[in-house]
Every structure is written in C-alpha cells, then in structure tokens.
C-alpha cells in the first residue's frame, strides 16, 4: 500500500516538474495530434492543454508553415533520428511573445526547437516530442553583436579611405 502511494507521489512530482519546467514540451502521435502540452505551451500560446489535446498541432497555429513542419516531422518518424531547428533558420516558429516585452529589445520569442522520436516499448516510433527552448537573450545578443561588428567595419573602411 505504502509502495503504491510512494509511486503515485513520485509520478506526481515528476509530472509537476514536466508541467512547470521553463521549456516547451509537446508530444504528438502519428496524426500530429497533441498528447501532451505543458504549461509553458499553455501560457505562451494561450491554448489550454484540454483544448490542445483534441487537435492537430498544425491546426492550433493557423499561421504555421504546415507543409514545411510536416516534412520535418515525417523525417523524424521515417529516419528515427532527431531533427533540430535553429532560431537562425526560423526565428519564431511558434508565435510566442518575448518574456520581457518592456526591458527587452525583442517583441517575439526566438526559439530553438528539437523534434525527437519517442520509441514505444516494442521499439516502434509512434510518437514524437517537440522541445521548444526560449533563446531570445542569445539571439538578441548575437544580432546586436554582428550589427556592431558591421558598423565597426564600415567605420574603419571609411577611415582608411
């Protein structure tokens, strides 16, 4: 009895952690239907978990480049290997706002996204997991740095003329 209660408690804190971690977690089945939608995804998208769970990921965000994203997900299913999407190729895959709209310089959240295959106990890949990282600070710093470098280059070349 106590073992069972302990197991439940373990599950409870594990789930609490997954739900509140500051990283977006989405699990999809083969029809791209949402199986798990953590609070990061709920709060940033404004779509609650109970609503998200009945739908395909592609229909939750109408402005998503669906053909493109579907191809990425199909590759993960087909090749059984993770595929990474960097903020440098798609700065804002999901239309989320930045965490610091007042003191920050970006309005939108820059994201790195990893799409990983999840294997079921028999080894078949029936689900995949999207992990969404907020990289707004890194991206804005890098953009500012390269802008400063460009400016410096222009100034030095103007000086040497």
């Amino acid at each position, binding site marked *: 009895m106590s073992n069972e209660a302990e197991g439940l408690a373990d599950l409870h804190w594990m789930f609490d952690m997954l739900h509140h971690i500051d990283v977006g977690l989405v699990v999809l089945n083969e029809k791209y239907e949402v199986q798990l939608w953590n609070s990061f995804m709920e709060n940033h998208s404004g779509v609650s978990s109970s609503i998200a769970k009945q739908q395909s990921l592609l229909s939750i965000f109408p402005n998503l480049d669906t053909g493109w994203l579907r191809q990425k997900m199909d*590759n993960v299913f*087909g*090749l059984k*290997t*993770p*595929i*990474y*999407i*960097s903020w*440098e*190729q798609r700065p804002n895959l999901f239309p989320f706002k930045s965490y610091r709209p007042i003191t920050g310089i970006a309005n939108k959240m820059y994201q*790195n996204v*990893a799409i990983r295959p999840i294997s079921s106990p028999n080894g078949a890949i029936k689900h995949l997991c999207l992990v969404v*990282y907020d990289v707004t600070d890194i991206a804005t710093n890098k953009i500012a740095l390269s802008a400063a470098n460009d400016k410096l280059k222009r100034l030095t070349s103007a000086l040497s003329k």
Partner: protein
Amino acid sequence: MSTRVLICDDSKLARNQMARVLPTDWDVEVEYAENGQEALELLSASAFDILFLDLNMPVKDGYETLEALQSFSQSPAVIVVSGDVQPKAIERVKDMGAVAFHKKPASGEELRTLLISLDLFSADINNAQPAVEIVTAAEQFTLNECLQEISNIAMGRAASVLAEMLNVFIKLPVPTVNILEVGELQMALDYSVKAESCSAVSQGFVGSGIAFEALLIFSDSSFPDMAKLLGVTENITRELETELLMDVSSILVGPFMTAIGKQLNIDFSHSHPVLLGQHVTIADLINVKKATWQRTLAVEIVYEVENYQISCDLMLLFTEDSVPTLENLLSFLVEDE
C-alpha cells in the same frame, strides 16, 4: 580437409572480431589480409574457400577487390562484412559476385545462421574446439585502431540513413584518428576542406566522463547541389543555407552518435547544434590564439555524395581529459566480445 578462410579488413580489431565469431566447431584454417591488394596476392598464390571482405580499405578497397576477382578462374565465396549498410552498397557488391552481405560487427549466432544458409558450414559435433587462436590481450589494440573501427561502423549507419532519405550513394572513406595540437587542427581542416569559404555547425556531446564536439564543415560550393539533392528549387538565400546546414547535420550527426553511443554503451547528453559560421574561413572557425585547449583527439571523416558536388567534413573532437576514460571503455569493448 579443413576449410580455408581469408579475412580481409584494414582494421586489426575488425579482423580479430571476425575470427572470434567464426563457429567454434568449424574445422578452419584462417589467414588475414590488411587490404584488397594483400588478399588478391594470397588468393592467387593458393586457393581459399571463403573470403570475408571489408569494403572501406586503403590501397585496394572491397569493390576493386571484387572486380579483380572476376577474372580469377577459381575464386572463393565472398561474404562482404561492412559497416556500410546503404542499400546501394549491398546491391552493388552482390552484382559484383559476392554471395552475401553482412553488417559489421557480426555476432557469432548471425554468422552461423548465414554460413549454414549458404551451405558453407554444417555443424560438426566431433570437432568442438576453438577454431582459431584468439588474441585476448586488449593492449594489442591501440586507442586509434579501436576508435577508427567504431567510427567506421557509425559512419556506415549514418550514411545509410542519409542514402535512404535522399536515394543517393554516399562514398565512405577510411576515418582518420589523430592527436592534434591547436595549430595542427587548423592545418588539418585547411587540408581537407580545401575551400576558401565554408560554413560549419557544431554539436557538443557529453556522457560517462567523455566529452567531444561533432564539428561538421561544408565548403560553400556544396550548397547548389545540396539544394538540388533536397529538392529545393527556391533561390539560395542565407536563410535557406542555414536550413540546409541544420537538416543535413541533424541527419548525419544523429544516427552517427546513436551508433557510437550504442557501441560504447553511453547515452550521451547533447546540446542543440550551433551554427558556428557562414561563409567564413577555417581560421575564423578555430581561433588559434583564443583557444583554451592544447590537444584534442580528432576523428575525421570526409563524406562525399556520388555524382554531386558535395563534400563535407565531420570531425569528432574529444577533449584531452576524455582520452583515459575512452581508452578504458574501448579496452572493455575489445575484451567483451
């Protein structure tokens, strides 16, 4: 009369592994060759019944050996044992006269089944003793040899995934393993990339005391053909190049690492791949002056796609403090089999 078997592989570890998994109750006489040239010399001097042949070898590779064997009046049954599991590689060797293909590393049970199905071996109860003298001392293999062989197997797996997705044939080289100083790494990259401008992606891996970076470098002249290969018809913009880089690196590095991790029995943690630079020179990638490390253990693999102008350089760069752990792990790998 005992069956005469020739094992041809450039890796001592692979030759030894192959000899170990031969059925123990088989009356065989085993000889070894380090490359196709050596094998052909042995085969023309005396007749062998079976040849276990690797594909990626220096001097004369497996394909060239198969081709040369076609002019032999009395040639052995050739079983290709290779890490290159691309469907086209398998098809190609069978067309060239190999009786079977087996993925590397072969297990005793699989090999036994294969040999029985080919009618090359039948169990002989009267002769139940080890067929070959087995080298057990792990010290006989250097770190470089072990690392080269596990990279070889991992590289084949990765190429097979890429080949399946793109329906092409990936040419696989022999991986090189070296300890490099900071300046030497830059020289090595300069030598193999041979391009004035290149783009690179790096992904970090860490697990069980081993840390390394997988650095993938493309010469910028590869982009038009890369776009063609991935079915992209749009104009090549900087964003599109990033997209191509991220996709190819995901597909190439992921399966490679899975295969390495499986062999070493480590579930590595890894970073998101980072775009190191676009249209930069090698010197911009590896900053010799700012480097905080002194030496790195480097495994280098140059992938080329047949009929396309695409070449990319995959470098696994291990930190110096990973080397003792790696050595220890690999010695277990050799002993275990």
